[in-house]
Every structure is written in C-alpha cells, then in structure tokens.
C-alpha cells in the first residue's frame, strides 16, 4: 500500500476564508492510502515546503498531495520540493481547491468544503496511480530566428547577438525598420523616430552575430524546441546583393513610377527601389509587378546603367533550410481597413487621411518635405479634425479592443499641427482619453493646455464636402449638443490589427492566435512573451497593440527567454508526453493529422505472427515535439495512445474516487 501525505493550503484567506481547511485535512485522513494529513497557512512558503519535506522523511511518505492553487504557478514549486526530499517529482499531485473551489463558491462555504474534500479524494486516488517519470535531454542549436525586422525584431536580435548567439532576421520587405521607420516623431518626448531607429538598424546590420535576410518570408517550420528546421523563401530581388554597392544609379534612371508604399501612396517611387533613403540593406529590389522589363520584355535600362552588372533578371526565389534553437516572432501590425466607415469619407475625399499618412506629411523626408499640406490641393490646412477610435472599441463595425497608442499619437499630431501651422485649430473627437504610461498624462495635458487642442467627447456621424471644406458633423456628448466643424483636413486614428497573414504564420509555426488574430501568449501575466510552443517567443504588436517602449521592452524580454534556452547545449524535456502501446496500435494513422505539433509519424515494425514474420505500421511519438496535449489519445479508438501522468488508469482512478 502506498503511503500518501496530504497538505491542505489556506492560501491566506483565499482558500481558508471559504473552505474549512482543518476539517478537510481531518477528513482526508480516512481516505484510502492517506497516512498523514495537515493544513497550513501558506504551503508554498518556505516553512510550508519544509513541512512537506519533513513529513516525507518522518512519515516515510511515497506520495504527496498538495491541495492549494492552480498547478499552473506552483506545480513546479512543489515538484522541486518533493524532489529535494528524495521523491520522484511526479509522485506529487495537486488538487486545485482555490480556482476550482473557494473562488467560485465563496457564498456556499459548506458546499465548498465538501467539494474540496472530493477534489482531495480524487487527487489521492490519482497520486497512488502515479508513476515515476524522468526528464530526458535534447540537443539545442545555438542559433535564433527573428521573424520581422521592425523595432521589436531589431531589439530582440541585438540583445541575442550581444549575448553571443547567432541571429537571423527574416524581413518580408526589402529593408528592416518596420513601421517605426515611417513614423516622424515619438511621444511623449518628441524625439525624431528615424534618429533613434536608424542607429539601431545600422547596429543590427553591422553586428557580427546578426544576419539580415530581407525580402524573404518563412515558408515552413518543422522540428521542435532547440531544433526548428525553418524553410525561408528568399524572394528574387533581381539584384545581386554580393555585387551591388547601392550607388542608386539604377533607381534614378528607372522610367517606371509607382505609388510608394512607404510614403503611404502620397508620392512615387521607382520600379527598382529601396523603400526609403536610410534603408538597410541599402540595395534595391525590382518590383516585378510594375517593372516595364518584366511586363513587356523591353527596357532593361537598369541593367545597362549598372556598371557592376548587379542586375539579374533571371533570379528566382531561393529556398534555404536552417536549423534554429529558438524563434522570436515580431511581425508587428497593420492599420485597420477603415473603409467600413463610409461615413468618414475615406477614399472619397483625399483630405481624409489616416494617422500614418499624417506621419509622412509631417516628416522632413516625406512627400511634402515636412510641410503639412492637403493631399488634394497642397494648401496648408488651418482647421484639422482628428477622429479617434476608428475601428477600435467598436464591436459593431471594428474591433472590440483598445488600440492603446492612438490617444497618444493623436495628442502628438495635435501639438505638431499647432507648432507647424500658425493660427491653426485642432479638434479631437474622442470616446475616452487613455494615457497610461510614463510622462503620457503630462503630454496630453500639455496638448490641451499649452497647445489648446479642443477635445470633444463624442463620435462623428458624418464627414461631407462643402466647397473645399470638409464638414465634420458629430455630437458633443458632454454638452449634449450637435457640433459641426468646418475642417480642412480630417485625420482618422485607425485601429492596430495584426498582419493579414498572421494566422497563416501561426499555423506554420504551430502557435495559437486569438479572435483578432493576435498571437496568444502562454500566460497573460506570468508568461507574456512565451507561446504554448516551447522555444517560440513573441515581441511587439503581433501579440497585441503596443507602443514603441512596450515593444522594445517585450523584445528584450523575449530575447532574455531565448538566451536562457540557447545558453545551454542541451535541454531537459517534459516527460508528460504521449506513449504508444505498439502491441495494440492498429496503425490507422488517425493520430498523425490530429496532432497539432506534428509529433506523430507512422513507422514499420516487424513481429512474429502465427509462425511468420510480418511487418506492420504503428504510431511513433517524437518526444521532443510532443507537448502532451492529449489530442491523439482521444482520437485513438484502440486506446493504444496514452498520455503519461494522465493515463486512462489514472483518470479513471480519479473518476472512481468521486463516483463510486
């Protein structure tokens, strides 16, 4: 007979205030196998853990049940605790009497106590069935992949590289820099965005440990933590990077002009181009969709003017497979498609623009050389209206979430308008003003008080044209009256949304994403940069709306996590994985497509059958890939697949303890 010790935690008053813990401990003494049962104020505290260790020795326990909080936080704590006392870590079983009991039954104390007893009883039954499990080791490849070369990706790469790890940055655009490169000033200090970003871009490109793989995308991800085999598609640049010096003659001579994406279509670029002057690498690519040579077969001017012969029209997409130990995803955001707000007239009136257009209009290297001019007629606007929450906090037409950055960048835009245009008036339609962050509230107050921006609480119902003015009709809900403003320009603060192909990337890598397609972190509070797939970390706005300081902070956090993984040549693997009972596995292979982690394959085994040697297929679980989710065990109708530590027998023991 096993000797089980039961330890009931009060968690201060979290559990103790609802559940009668001493009573539970008393009742637990009579459960089969229990030889010792005690309650304590904080089981996770040093004295609490000492109590467990002492009891294991003195009572000669071979199983431990801790009834406390969710195992999410303290299962590792108690596993370590029993391990220190010489017991296999997996002989410790937790009963969650906080989240599953006291917190949800606070008003029914007697019933909560009864339920706590049942939960403990089940945990005791399972603990008795628990088997000793051992961690195995797998090798770790000391190389990291950063997907997305915006500020978050650059920061993560720099931190990893400075810690001595080799990093590849994959960026789908021809240059690194991301959205921050398009932004003019940064709040709340109003430093020039490019001035603080470009040095980091240069650092990244010149760092001996960093390789930039621009104009490339992740095609396929195989393997598992420590050993991801990533296929990267290097799109054909049509320019030989090893030869090109970035002199720019080809760009100046190219006759095809195209709307520049970097300039938010407000000015033109060439078909052979770098997105912006400070691009890194500062070597052009040919936009084949708009290149005369690729469209008609005639032209070839760039090839003629290039004295180094760097132009190569025959280049094809190249696929490279590299093994990485860790992956940091920092794919950032896009602007919400606000065409659903037809009433704001975007697309109909050229002077209704988005915040990102505005960034380009006030940027000294932008299409207007930093002079704020109306896109329609080049006049300097006097009355500028900003509409906030376009797509954010709108369950009906947009996204339910707050995009977090708009309040601050609109305040920034308002100050810049007032600074740059004399006698200008700024009106800001808002729902709430949210300025959480260091120096943010002060900046907002300055915008109102010193720069005299008119904040109008209410939504805009319509924007329409009258003469060369835009009439903005809305409501001031604080005064309960309709307002109409004659504006020269309207700026929409559009919501932040993840990249359009974010869900596809998540599927390739095998990580989760939420209803808005932001990538899901492993735990919103305690593992905010990890994903449920070990070795894959998140940085920046791909995980949720973030401003620059937050993106940079998260990037460094993700890098620190990746460093922790890459700093060892081997890592321990979780032993809670699926196992195949080959003797009853029928080899139907249903578990193969069911597995979200691609951890199961079929293999051929040979065995003796009626005097003959026969060959047959059976499932084979890759212990490195398996995350122990248990999907396969449900799909297996023969019951040949079982999840260690959650075996059918162990679960049934719990059910029987409760029901029989």
């Amino acid at each position, binding site marked *: 007979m096993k000797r089980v010790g039961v330890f009931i935690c009060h968690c201060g008053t979290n559990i103790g205030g609802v559940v009668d813990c001493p009573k539970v401990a008393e009742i637990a003494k009579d459960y089969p196998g229990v030889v010792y049962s005690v309650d304590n104020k904080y089981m996770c505290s040093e004295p609490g853990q000492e109590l467990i260790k002492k009891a294991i020795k003195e009572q000669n326990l071979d199983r431990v049940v801790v009834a406390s909080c969710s195992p999410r936080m303290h299962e590792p704590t108690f596993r370590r605790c029993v391990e220190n006392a010489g017991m296999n870590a997996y002989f410790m079983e937790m009963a969650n009497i906080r989240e599953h009991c006291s917190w949800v039954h606070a008003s029914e104390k007697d019933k909560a106590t009864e339920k706590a007893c049942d939960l403990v009883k089940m945990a005791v039954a399972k603990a008795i069935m628990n088997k000793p499990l051992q961690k195995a080791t797998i090798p770790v490849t000391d190389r990291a992949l950063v997907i997305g070369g915006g500020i978050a990706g650059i920061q993560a790469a720099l931190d990893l590289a400075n810690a001595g790890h080799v990093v590849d940055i994959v960026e789908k655009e021809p240059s690194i820099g991301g959205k921050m490169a398009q932004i003019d000033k940064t709040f709340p200090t109003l430093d020039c965005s490019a001035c603080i970003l470009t040095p980091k871009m240069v650092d990244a490109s010149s760092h001996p440990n960093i390789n930039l793989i621009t104009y490339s995308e992740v095609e396929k991800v195989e393997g598992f933590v420590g050993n991801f085999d990533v296929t990267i598609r290097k799109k054909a640049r049509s320019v030989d990077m090893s030869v090109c010096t970035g002199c720019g003659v080809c760009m100046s001579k190219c006759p095809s002009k195209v709307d520049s994406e970097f300039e938010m279509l407000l000015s033109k670029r060439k078909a052979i181009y770098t997105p912006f002057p400070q691009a890194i690498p500062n070597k052009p690519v040919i936009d084949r969709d708009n290149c005369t040579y690729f469209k008609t077969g005639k032209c070839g001017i760039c090839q003629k003017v290039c004295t180094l012969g760097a132009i190569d029209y025959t280049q094809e997409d190249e696929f490279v497979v590299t093994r990485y130990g860790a992956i940091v995803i920092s794919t950032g955001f896009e602007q919400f498609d606000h065409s659903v707000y037809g009433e704001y007239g975007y697309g109909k009136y050229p002077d209704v623009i988005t915040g990102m257009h505005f960034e380009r209009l006030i940027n000294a290297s932008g299409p207007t050389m930093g002079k704020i001019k109306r896109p329609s007629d080049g006049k300097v606007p006097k009355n500028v209206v900003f509409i906030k929450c376009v797509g954010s906090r709108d369950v009906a037409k947009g996204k339910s979430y707050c995009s977090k950055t708009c309040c601050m960048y609109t305040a920034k835009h308002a100050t810049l308008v007032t600074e740059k245009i004399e006698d200008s008036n700024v009106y800001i339609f808002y729902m709430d003003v949210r300025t959480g962050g260091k120096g943010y509230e002060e900046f907002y107050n300055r915008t109102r008080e010193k720069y005299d921006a008119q904040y109008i609480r209410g939504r805009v119902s319509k924007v329409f044209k009258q003469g060369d003015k835009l009439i903005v009709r809305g409501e001031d809900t604080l005064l309960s009256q309709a307002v109409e403003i004659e504006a020269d320009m309207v700026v929409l603060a559009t919501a932040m949304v993840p990249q359009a192909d974010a869900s596809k990337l998540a599927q390739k890598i095998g990580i989760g994403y939420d209803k808005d397609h932001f990538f899901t972190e492993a735990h919103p509070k305690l593992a905010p940069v990890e994903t449920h797939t070990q070795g894959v970390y998140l940085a920046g706005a791909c995980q949720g709306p973030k401003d620059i300081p937050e993106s940079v902070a998260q990037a460094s956090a993700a890098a620190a996590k990746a460093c922790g993984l890459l700093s060892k040549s081997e890592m321990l693997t979780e032993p809670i994985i699926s196992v195949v009972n080959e003797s009853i596995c029928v080899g*139907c292979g249903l578990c193969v*497509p069911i597995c979200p982690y691609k951890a199961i394959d079929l293999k051929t085994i040979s065995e003796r059958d009626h005097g003959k040697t026969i060959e047959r297929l059976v499932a084979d679980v890759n212990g490195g890939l398996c995350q122990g989710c248990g999907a396969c065990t449900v799909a297996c109708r023969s*019951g040949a697949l079982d999840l260690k530590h959650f075996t059918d027998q162990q679960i049934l023991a719990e059910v029987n303890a409760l029901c029989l």
Partner: protein
Amino acid sequence: MVDLTLEIRKTAKELLEKGEAKVVLGWEKGNFPYSTTPVFIDKPEDTERLIWDEYCINNLALYMLDYKHLDGKVGIFVKGCDSRGINRLVQDKQLDREKVILIGLSCPGMKDEKKAKELGPNADIPMAQKCQDCRYPDPVVYDVFLGEKQNKKVPEKIDTSDVEEMETKSPDEKYRFFTTNYEKCLRCYACRNVCPACNCKECIFDQTATGWLAKANNVSNNMFFALTRAMHVGGRCIECGECERVCSVNIPIMLLNKKIIKDINFLFGDYDAGLETEERLPLGGYDYTDPEEFM
C-alpha cells in the same frame, strides 16, 4: 441473376487458375432459401459454390482483415456497400489496395431474411431496411465489373427523418427509448464484429483491465458500450447497416450512427464515408481555424 452467377463463377475460377488471386470472397447458398452466407474459395473447383441471389446481403469487406498478411492477392465481389467497406479499410490503412482485386456487382437491393423467415416460402418478401436506405447500389470502386450498372436514381442526402423525429422528443422520452432498447442488448458484440469500420487490432471492449467497461450486462454498461461504439465509428461509418441487420434483439443501432452522421454533416459539411481514401476524415484532423464556438 442466374446469368450473373455463372459469370461470377467463371471470373473466380479464372482468377484462381491463373494464380492472380489466392482466395476469392463471395457468397454461397445457406441452409434455407432465405439464407446466403459469405464463402471463401481457394480452389478453382470450389467456385461452383458461388452464387448471386436476392439474399447476398452480407458486407464482405470486413473479412479482408483476415487476409492482411496473406502472400498474394485476394479477389472479392463487391456491391456498393462492400466497396465502401473496402475504401474504409484502405483509408484506415488496414488493407493494401494493391493486394485486392475488386469485382464489382450492381446491387438491386437485397431481401430481408428475417421477414422471409417469418412470412414463409410463398410470401412476397420486402427489401431489407439497409437496402431501402442505400444510396450507393453500384460499387464506388472496382477493378472488374460484371453485369450492368443500374445507375439508379438515389437520394442525394442521407435520410435522417427518424433522427429528427427522435430529436423532437423530451430528454426523458429519449432516455426511456434508449434504456428500453439497450436493456435487451446481449452484448454479443455482433454489431462490432460485422462492422468494417471496427478494425482495431484489439478492441477497447476486449481490454477489460483498463476498466472502461465492466463485463456485467446491465443498462448502464450496455449503453456505455453502444455510445462508445457509435463514437468510435463516428465519421467513418459507411452506413452499410450491417450492425443493425445482425442485431439479434433488433436494437435500432443505425439511429445512433445516423445521428452522428447528421451532426457531422451539419458541423463540417456533407460527408459520405468510404467514397474515396485520400481525403482527411471529418473528425480526423487538427484545424487551427476551428472556430471553437463553445469556448
């Protein structure tokens, strides 16, 4: 049918004589006019035993499991339901399509042997229920075809009117319906043994040590068996109706199978199992875009 019987014998004989097949699976006459049973022929001279009549109702596909490791090919006569059973086994990786020669026969619908037994020799015997519900009388896959295809017009979708009727009943009525039926269950496992989708090496119901299902015959255990069986063939049931046909206590087993088919059609789009072997099963994959509306 007499002409076809002769052709069947000839084809089987040729296969065995030329050594193309080591065994041929077909049907032979049983002890009564209304009984026709599967037969396994391995000598050319025995092919005279093969027949084709209005009682060749057994789905032969399942017997292929006995020849999994045979050196050489197996010839098998297939009606619509048998051919879907073959696809079932191929998709479940229990049968190598290369190792089987499928001889297709168009099925006119077989007669109900139980009714024939009741009504006596001179009565007009109705078609078996499973054949009345059949939507694929012509084989969906074959290597050789004997006779002519009838290209009968069949309903596009499975008839689930009986399931819908059951769904309108109150939980109590439903529970009573199932307990009354499963009280009768003998747990003879004939429904499992005859099912081409039940192709496990060792059935979960035979693994008594796991403790899923007790041996005792009572409503609780019987219903647990019935529900588990239905779930285990969920998304893979080829609607051949053999389970219900062989039930010695006349439990409407197909009602449960059809309920699951109906739900799958509703949730994942119309799906007829056993029509092909490559497509992923509706319950056989992990999909990141699964909306998870219940979460």
